[in-house]
């Protein structure tokens, strides 16, 4: 059995190994031949029209209502996992405790729903 730190190092080695493999592949591809630079080739493909105009602008994400509620739900997960691990051991108190917590969150969801946060804006 490996120690925890050894396991982390293994994961880190995996990350570095993959990065190195990919770089090696890129090197191989480069050895086969370089990309030929030509006009129009490096413009993002847009189905036959040459659109050189940049698109980085203020982007209207229509799901921002969901996004706001999601942030709250994401936060809640910090509590759920440790709770789940000791749940059986603690028993009914844990269910009751978490029930209250989830009910509060569900209330928030219902409020958002009623106010129209759960739709495309």
């Amino acid at each position: 059995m490996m120690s925890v730190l050894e396991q982390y190092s293994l994961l880190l080695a995996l990350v570095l190994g993959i990065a190195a493999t990919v770089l090696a592949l890129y090197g191989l591809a480069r050895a086969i031949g370089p990309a030929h630079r030509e006009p129009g080739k490096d413009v993002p493909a847009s189905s036959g029209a040459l659109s050189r105009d940049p698109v980085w602008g203020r982007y209207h994400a229509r799901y921002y209502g969901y996004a706001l509620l999601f942030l709250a739900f994401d936060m809640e997960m910090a509590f759920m996992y440790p709770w789940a691990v000791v749940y059986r051991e603690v028993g009914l108190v844990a269910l009751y405790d978490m029930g209250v917590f989830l009910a509060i969150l569900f209330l928030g969801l219902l409020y958002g729903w009623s106010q129209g946060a759960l739709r495309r804006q």
Partner: protein
Amino acid sequence: MYAQAFFVAVFGLAAIGFGVVVFRTSSMVRSALALLFSQTAVGCMFLAMQTEFLGVLQIMMMATEMSIMAIFMVMFMMDPGGMGGMDMTHQKRFSIGAGVVAAGVAIVVAFWADWGPVTVEAPDAAMQTRALGMELLGRSMLIFETAGITILTAMIAATAVAIPVQTTANSADKEDTE
């Protein structure tokens, strides 16, 4: 022990490095993702310090939350692509001063605080998670439920502020402007 210190240092430097990138770029998305990777590096520091649950949680939560921050920045900031080369820093003199003072305070606290005896061996990661759960359901239950209420408040506040209410007056108004 030395390996741990080494990795803490490496990830710490990475965190600072990405933190610098946050302000050195004029692209909002780049800035947001640099902040994300800075936070990820902090999560890796937690891992190197053998607080596994905290580290993994940090790595997980930041990915989604910083990405959502990125989209909100793209929605509401001018020139999110940074094509205008906008400088993201303001009030340079004041902020440099504030930064230096804050760093000084942090260093002083770090050296002066009584950190207690160094733990020879950190408890097993599985034990940590279990202990955290017990804490949540025992002594800290009230804090835990208060957090629930706080999150609820945040949800209600966010919804009330951000979501336009559909009333008849509102829709009539909208038709006027169109």
